């Protein structure tokens, strides 16, 4: 069986923060590769560097040393415009606090993300409807976030992340604000979507339920991947 293509890889990532007079090395040479359709859970205690690693993988933060590859191409980390382009085209984010735009409906939240990615007009509307139906919210298109449950908001966030066809989805503690039942449903949805759409999926989490849906569990301690 042909091995799936690498959609996202980080090689020897080092990240140092200057905090006052101190230099704090948060990541100490981390390498990780994610393949299409693969679900990777990234576990670790607070302060281990999980979110920093996710930020670098998502081309939001730049590493002090090391490189990031998306779809096999090295991303030039010294070019903010290229980083933006990678985020627009290849990365879908799902955040712990959903980060939906409260003034926009579910459909408009997804449409706006598509507009940012350069998809406009009727095409954006059609794509927004498609991904929202995919995550089971076909009957909630015009609901504002305040009128949606926590689980429904996270589904909208997943739909927004899927819109535009990114190669990889990055989720930061996606079940932290959800109850057990809803959290399980959201995780199952994550896996189903990743497999069906052949996306790489990285989930940063404290939630042990994530292990049940992950193809691979990677631990991170003190800025290094645990053996």
């Amino acid at each position, binding site marked *: 069986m042909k091995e799936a293509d690498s959609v996202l890889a980080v090689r020897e990532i080092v990240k140092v923060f200057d905090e006052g007079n101190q230099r704090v090395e948060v990541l100490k040479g981390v390498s990780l590769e994610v393949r299409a359709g693969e679900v990777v859970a990234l576990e670790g205690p607070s302060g281990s560097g999980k979110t920093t690693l996710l*930020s670098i993988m998502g081309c*939001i933060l730049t590493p002090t040393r090391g490189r990031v590859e998306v779809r096999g191409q090295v991303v030039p980390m010294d070019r903010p415009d290229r980083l*933006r382009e990678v985020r627009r085209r290849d990365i879908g984010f799902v955040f*712990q606090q959903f980060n939906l735009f409260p003034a926009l409906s579910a459909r408009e939240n997804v449409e706006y*993300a598509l507009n940012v*990615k350069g998809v406009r007009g009727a095409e954006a509307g059609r794509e927004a409807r498609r991904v929202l139906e995919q995550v089971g919210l076909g009957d909630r298109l015009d609901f504002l976030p305040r009128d949606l449950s926590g689980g429904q908001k996270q589904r909208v966030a997943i739909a927004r992340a899927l819109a535009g066809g990114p190669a990889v989805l990055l989720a930061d503690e996606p079940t932290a604000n959800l109850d057990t039942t809803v959290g399980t449903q959201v995780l199952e949805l994550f896996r189903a979507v990743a497999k069906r759409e052949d996306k790489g999926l990285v989930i940063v989490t404290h939630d042990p339920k994530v292990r049940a849906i992950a193809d691979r569990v990677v631990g991170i301690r003190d800025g290094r991947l645990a053996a």
Partner: protein
Amino acid sequence: MVSLARRNLLHDRLRFAITVAGVAFAVTLVLVQVGLFMGILDKATVTIQHAAADVWVTSRETPNVDFAHAFPETTVLRVRGVPGVERADNLIVAFMNIQLPSGAEEGCLVYALEDFRGWNLPWVVHEGDVRDLRRGRYILMDRSAERRFGPFAVGEYREILGRRFKIIGTTSGAASFTTAPITFMHYGNAQELSDVLRNRASYILVKTAAGADPREVAAAIRQVAPYNDVYTRDEWASRSRRYWVVSTGLGMNMGVTVFLGILVGIVVVAQTLYTSAVEHVKEFGTVKAIGGSNRDIYRILGEQALIAAVVGFAVGGLLSMAMRPVMAKLYLNVLVSPSFAAAVFVGTVAMCLGAAMLSFRRVAGIDPALVFRA
């Protein structure tokens, strides 16, 4: 395309209302203040604009049309001989005291000519015939006099400088910048009222011949009347306006008020947009995280500023229009030309966009990584 700018604005209606109110206040202040100014200033040149005179001959250094000084009336004979002059007549303009039925005295501005109709003075006559002024001690009084003199009617008598005159008609629109109503009487009657005016006139009105350039005719008149000042209609109107704007501080007052109005508008819009930007910093961080640029966020703020400008201008414009009948009851005219209104609209947009730009630096510094923080 989804307008995050518009939806965010309307999502917080109270803040939107405050922003619009700030812009509307600034717009109303500017439109009404300048409109009042223009209305008041209009009075400074109302007779110059309506009189059918292309050139005015005045005494030396006359500052404006109300403050006339007398000069020999024979000067008109030399003026009539200038090529390009179709017609020239003496005009007396003088403040005179009029006695009211109560015994009090008030001031009025007397305009006296031999032939009013030839000069389109007065320009609106409600009752009476201006030709009858020559038939005796008769006057036409402007209706604006009712405000200061009390009610009056055709057929009543009033004393001017101790002489009894019969009111034979009424006019409207004829009031000086000083608010003294204009009273029209025959030239000879005016000269009889004051020794200063014996054989003297305040102005010479000149109508140029068809095809003649008023500036050239004025220059020629200066040669024959070296002890007078000579102006075209526009020059004379400009001089009269300038006197009131500069020497009374009216222009400075208006300028300061307009400046303060604009400042209030900028502060309100800048404050609300900046506060909104701070409150929506996580949203803007999300926009950046999903691939949006600073320019995308500037566009959001700019669109919000534009919406505030358009809606605020509309509300301010409506308020200004609503104030016109109120001002009219106080005998104040709010004059706003379409071109000035357009200029205020452009200024409003510029003001709001400028205010929005104060937030640009704040949003440019938003770190998209903040979306990962709780």
